[in-house]
């Protein structure tokens, strides 16, 4: 387990069922030596044909993050469904490191199902985890993701993010050049999308509240960019701002009580923080240049932002309440650095980077602000809006593929990449949820 812990846990869905072909994640880059795992189809009893294939959900999850490789089903020598049926030598011969077995049992006349799983270390011949999960038959996919979380954490030591969700914006060109915009929420793998807001006017900058009950975003529905919050469960909305000029980039503070934002009411875009309880507005930056794209430091005391006060976008940091002159510049080595956010360690900064004036390409990168070491994670040219998975393992971002906006994800070591499915339209501005349970 120690050796695997050193690997970054990042693996996403492979497409191996034709039925999923249109809607499944494509792994576009994986690791050289993925961990071999056998995921045996779960034995089913008392549930109808066509119910979600839990083992398939788990195998897809694990393969997607790039670090695992699931044994092909046709290569399975036996189909155990519980510990008493497992013969470790079979799996050792197949060079599998781990084994997952289970069974799904329905309750006659009801939607209730029980899912029992057991997860083994094949080489040590050891049961690592096992339990019985229950829910309704429509929750089998969620149960599969939960099992993926457990397997992933057992192997990597890192909490799995397979039950998380994403927000994103879709823009579609309609007939006559009329665009329409949707704010959507989906599982982390793009499955089961739900529309949270539809508009004929642009929607921008979705952001989760730390408890994931609420989303903040910018909507142009009044013809002007204004900030709104919306309760995800009830759909209830609240307009937070109505200042002249730009009202944009809402970002919840780590404790959820404050919203950082950009307002240009005093002449040029500056960073402000609004207390959501008292509505008190605190000005954070004061500069005639453009200050935008605020994010919170992990301790919630300072704001990281982008400013073009030296002529081109660079990253700065300021403590809330400090003098507007007391600004620390964090990046120097790029032509433009923008849209930055600290990883939980408070040292590494995810950002969008344009290296030189000569080449107008934008990539996702991480800079360590102590050592100034830079890792560029992507190699396409219009990458933007990076958003970090809550377990810190992957970054989802927006890019262009064949002229269309799509969502890609990359592991924070840059080794694994996958692309989310998208049916139509331009998809942009992903926001990865916090842990949801």
């Amino acid at each position, binding site marked *: 387990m120690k050796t695997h812990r050193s690997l970054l846990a990042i693996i996403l869905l492979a497409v191996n069922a034709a039925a999923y072909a249109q809607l499944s994640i494509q792994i576009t880059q994986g690791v050289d030596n993925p961990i071999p795992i056998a995921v045996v189809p779960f034995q089913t009893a008392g549930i109808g044909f066509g119910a979600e294939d839990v083992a398939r959900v788990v195998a897809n999850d694990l393969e997607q993050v790039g670090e695992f490789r699931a044994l092909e089903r046709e290569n399975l020598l036996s189909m155990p469904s519980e510990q008493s049926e497992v013969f470790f030598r079979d799996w050792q011969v197949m060079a599998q490191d781990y084994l997952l077995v289970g069974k799904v049992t329905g309750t006659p006349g009801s939607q209730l199902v029980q899912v029992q799983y057991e997860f083994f270390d094949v080489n040590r011949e050891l049961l690592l985890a096992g339990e019985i999960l229950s829910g309704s038959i429509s929750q089998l996919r969620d149960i599969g993701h939960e099992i993926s979380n457990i397997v992933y954490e057992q192997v990597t030591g890192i909490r799995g993010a397979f039950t998380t969700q994403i927000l994103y914006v879709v823009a579609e060109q309609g007939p006559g050049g009329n665009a329409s915009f949707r704010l959507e929420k989906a599982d982390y793998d793009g499955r089961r999308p739900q529309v949270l807001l539809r508009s004929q006017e642009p929607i921008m900058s979705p952001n989760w509240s730390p408890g994931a009950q609420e989303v903040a975003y910018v909507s142009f529905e009044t013809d002007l960019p204004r900030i709104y919050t919306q309760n995800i469960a009830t759909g209830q909305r609240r307009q937070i701002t109505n200042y002249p000029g*730009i009202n944009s980039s809402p970002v919840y503070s780590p404790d959820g009580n404050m919203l950082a934002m950009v307002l240009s009411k005093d002449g040029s875009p500056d960073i402000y923080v609004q207390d959501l309880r008292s509505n008190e507005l605190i000005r954070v930056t004061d500069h005639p240049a453009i200050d935008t794209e605020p994010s919170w430091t992990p301790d919630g005391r300072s704001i990281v932002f982008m400013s073009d006060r030296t002529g081109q976008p660079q990253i700065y940091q300021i403590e809330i309440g400090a003098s507007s002159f007391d600004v620390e510049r964090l990046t120097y080595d790029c032509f433009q650095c923008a849209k930055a956010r600290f990883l939980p360690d408070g040292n590494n900064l995810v950002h969008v980077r344009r290296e030189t004036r000569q080449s107008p390409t934008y990539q996702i990168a991480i800079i360590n602000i102590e050592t100034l070491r830079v890792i560029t994670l992507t190699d396409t040219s*219009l990458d933007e809006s990076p958003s970090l998975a809550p377990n810190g393992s992957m970054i989802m971002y927006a890019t262009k593929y064949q002229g269309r906006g799509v969502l890609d994800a990359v592991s924070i070591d840059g080794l694994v990449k996958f692309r989310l499915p998208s049916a139509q339209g331009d998809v942009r501005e992903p926001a990865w949820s916090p842990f949801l349970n």
Partner: protein
Amino acid sequence: MGTQSYSIFKAALLVFSLALFAACSSTEDVDDQQSAGGESDTGSSAQTSGTSEPPPLTAEEIAMQEALRTTIFYFDFDIAEFKAEDRDTLTYHARDLAGNPDRRIRLEGHADERGTREYNLALGERRANGILNYLIVNGASRAQIEVVSYGEERPAETGTNETAYAANRRVEIVGR
């Protein structure tokens, strides 16, 4: 003749061509067209045809009409200042606003898709504000003008190429 359904611009062109034609026919047609076309005595820039009936527009008035037809101003990449060649056109827009205090316009700023979305939103506003300030300096009132930036969210052309980008870096003057 359905002239009323034409835009003023088309009506003006029509009147203009008929005015030329009128030089070798009766002038009644011209009068009919003018009444049908409403305020489009634009077209009878009849200096060329020698007709002296409507008061001829001065060269200055013609230039003004011409300038007010230009409502989209394009910008260079990463540049927020409007182009020098648009200065005169914008001066006419400012004078038009100064001379018509009830007129209201909206300046809509846009950027191309390169660079981050929030920065482009700010760049669009900076571009529109550059024009706003110029209009005010040249006689327009602040109260006549609303500014909104759409950043890269409402491209005039889709496409990841320089032609589309150039068409998208713009400020549009829209009547309210």
